[in-house]
């Protein structure tokens, strides 16, 4: 790649960026986290046990709603801490030289490995896909290997076909767009024959070592897939706190910044203004799922054993056929007649039902992972490889971010609705806990919405959810809060989490809509996450937040006019507590709202991004 060729893209200036190495796993840090998590859990139980005894007798229903919301939130935190219990990285194993080194049953004639790189595209700019194809063709391997790069174009574009030919990649397309990305991948799998398959989005650019570093994991014949972290190399890294303070307060500022970083780990000001950096998810959440075989596949940047994907597909296919035919055959008492009917119905159902190597579902990746993990006959394993080995582009504005999050939320809730992991017998208790924690997190509006609205009830109606905000309240609540924050800080050491927490809280409205959507059993439309944004303002996405903030401001003014300066201590404590909580919420919303007002950079030179 010459400088000439990547010029004109907004991300050109990030071309030379290298991903940070993951913080080494440490048993000591695990232990400190576990101790803090147990402390936080104990203090939380103590707080809640007390909390339910001090419901406000003047507003019983309101008190119960808020106490219930706090209890649900605590359950979420407890699940989250349990899901982060241990960090255990997979041992590095040498890259296999031949196919028999990764097979359970060896082939009679051994041969070099065959790997297919499948790059799915639909409407992305041709030149953007070209960058991905080129990088895929540069993959290195220490042994002879058959590497084929395939562009799977659901857009059926002659320009993409020409580009694939120029670069030396294969071009595959199909007559329909059935199943969208999952269908596109299924078609790619049908037309290729590699032992292993690398799944890439149109903008996924592998680093040369992707195969070298990961294929060793497949020496264990039970390993079905390896997921590597998704790294958005175009996310604004922000300014490190010492530098930021130095620019404002000189040497004293720098010293202060250094002290702060020594206490809480690296801090970057203004980083990731769109809240899309998935580092916390990969470096913390996924990494902590490795030890109990619950790391799930996230699509781009994953490598799959073809046989595992196909076996899961066939089993899923058979299960759906039998689910369709069983209600009819069960009613036939005569065994011979039943067998005949079953055969006829089975053949009929098999025509209609699609054989889908990746589930035709909005959250195809997590759903496929769940199915493979839950296969009790095989005990497939998944590996989360902690080093970044691909780079990709981040969603470019709040609209793109929201589409993606809405898709994740609906998809995950829909899985819980259809195939509740808690009821899948093939999963171990820890796997159930891990999948359960993911699903539970999407129920957040059940507690965030009441907790966001509670201050308004106080400002306008003067009701409080506890008898009084006195010293006993703070003595119960503050230690729990501090222990929780410390536990998060230790677990996510050097990985920023604040931005994702802000955006998670701000997503209350989006998550509430997703919940309503799934409960109403409405069809979930598949929307391709736009990677290349035209630059849009997205006021509608933040109008609930603006309304809430405006109401809070009016409420504070109104209540302030009623609370006189010589009010009893309990009254002013309630006022101050509610103002403090409202300010916390406003602070969380601020970057989210700012993101909606920001029109992001464009793709680049018009000639390139046509």
């Amino acid at each position, binding site marked *: 790649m010459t400088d000439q060729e990547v010029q004109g893209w907004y991300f050109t200036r990030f071309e030379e960026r290298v991903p940070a190495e993951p913080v080494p796993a440490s048993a000591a840090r695990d232990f400190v986290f576990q101790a803090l998590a147990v402390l936080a859990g104990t203090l939380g139980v103590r707080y809640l046990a007390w909390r339910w005894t001090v419901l406000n007798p003047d507003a019983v229903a309101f008190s119960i709603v808020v106490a219930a919301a706090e209890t649900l939130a605590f359950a979420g935190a407890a699940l989250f801490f349990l899901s982060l219990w241990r960090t255990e990285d997979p041992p590095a194993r040498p890259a296999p030289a031949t196919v028999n080194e990764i097979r359970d049953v060896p*082939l*009679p004639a051994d041969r070099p490995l065959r790997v297919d790189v499948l790059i799915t595209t639909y409407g992305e700019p041709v030149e953007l896909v070209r960058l991905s194809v080129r990088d895929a063709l540069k993959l290195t391997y220490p042994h002879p290997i058959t590497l084929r790069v395939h562009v799977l174009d659901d857009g059926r574009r002659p320009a993409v076909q020409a580009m694939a030919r120029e670069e030396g990649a294969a071009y595959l397309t199909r007559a329909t767009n059935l199943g969208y990305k999952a269908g596109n991948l299924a078609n790619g*799998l*049908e*037309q*290729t*024959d*590699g*032992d292993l398959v690398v799944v890439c989005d149109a903008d996924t650019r592998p680093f040369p070592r992707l195969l070298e570093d990961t294929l060793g994991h497949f020496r264990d014949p039970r390993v079905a897939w390896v997921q590597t972290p998704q790294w958005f190399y175009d996310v604004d890294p922000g300014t490190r706190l010492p530098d930021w303070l130095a620019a404002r307060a000189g040497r004293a500022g720098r010293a202060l910044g250094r002290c702060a970083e020594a206490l809480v780990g690296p801090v970057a000001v203004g980083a990731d203004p769109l809240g899309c950096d998935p580092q916390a998810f990969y470096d913390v959440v996924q990494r902590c799922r490795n030890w109990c075989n619950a790391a799930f596949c996230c699509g781009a940047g994953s490598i799959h054993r*073809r*046989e595992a994907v*196909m*076996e899961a*597909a*066939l*089993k899923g*296919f*058979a*299960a759906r*056929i*039998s689910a369709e035919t069983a209600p009819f055959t069960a009613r036939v008492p005569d065994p011979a007649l039943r067998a005949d009917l*079953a*055969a*006829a119905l*089975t*053949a*009929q159902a*098999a*025509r209609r039902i699609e*054989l889908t*190597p990746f589930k035709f579902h909005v959250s195809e990746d997590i759903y496929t992972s769940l199915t493979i993990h839950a296969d009790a*006959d095989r005990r497939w394993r998944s590996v989360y490889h902690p080093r970044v080995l691909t780079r990709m582009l981040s969603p470019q504005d709040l609209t793109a971010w929201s589409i993606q999050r809405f898709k994740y939320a609906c998809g995950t809730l829909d899985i819980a609705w259809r195939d509740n992991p808690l009821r899948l017998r093939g999963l171990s208790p820890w796997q159930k806990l891990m999948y359960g924690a993911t699903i539970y997190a999407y129920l957040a509006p059940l507690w965030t919405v009441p907790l966001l609205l509670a201050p308004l009830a106080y400002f306008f109606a003067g009701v409080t959810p506890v008898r009084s905000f006195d010293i006993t309240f703070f003595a119960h609540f503050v230690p729990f809060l501090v222990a929780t924050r410390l536990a998060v800080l230790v677990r996510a050491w050097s990985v920023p989490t604040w931005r994702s927490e802000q955006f998670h809280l701000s997503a209350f409205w989006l998550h509430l809509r997703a919940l309503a959507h799934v409960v109403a059993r409405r069809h979930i439309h598949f929307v391709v996450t736009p990677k290349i944004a035209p630059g849009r303002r997205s006021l509608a996405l933040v109008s609930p937040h603006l309304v809430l903030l405006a109401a809070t401001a009016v409420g504070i003014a109104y209540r302030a006019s009623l609370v006189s300066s010589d009010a009893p201590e309990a009254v002013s404590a309630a006022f101050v507590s509610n103002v403090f909580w409202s300010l916390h919420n406003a602070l969380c919303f601020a970057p989210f709202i700012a993101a909606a007002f920001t029109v992001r950079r464009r793709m680049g030179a018009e000639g390139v991004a046509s």
Partner: protein
Amino acid sequence: MLEARFEEIRGALVVTPLVRRLDAEAAPRLRQTVGPLAAGRSLVVISLAHVDAVDCSGLAALVTVLKRLAPGGELRLAAANGSVRALLAATHLDELFPVFPEVAGALPSACDDTGTALAT
């Protein structure tokens, strides 16, 4: 092009793949070669007499072939060895693909049993 023998026997298409393995490597060719010939037929018999092993990709290719048969059509397997039967059982597809010890048993019973070779 999949190396295979194709015969027309009593209205049924009998396909005898001349490969040792119906696996990921053979699957795309199986789809391309057998799919069009099987389209619209009511009975296709795949003889696995020469096949030692089938994997999930091979089985998936057979599903694709089955989907092209006429409504009510059947795809039968003949001369499948123990490992193939085990795979069918493990994937719960034994009901979809009836297995017969030999080709003759998989064909409809009729007095006319002269086969016609189509292609090799």
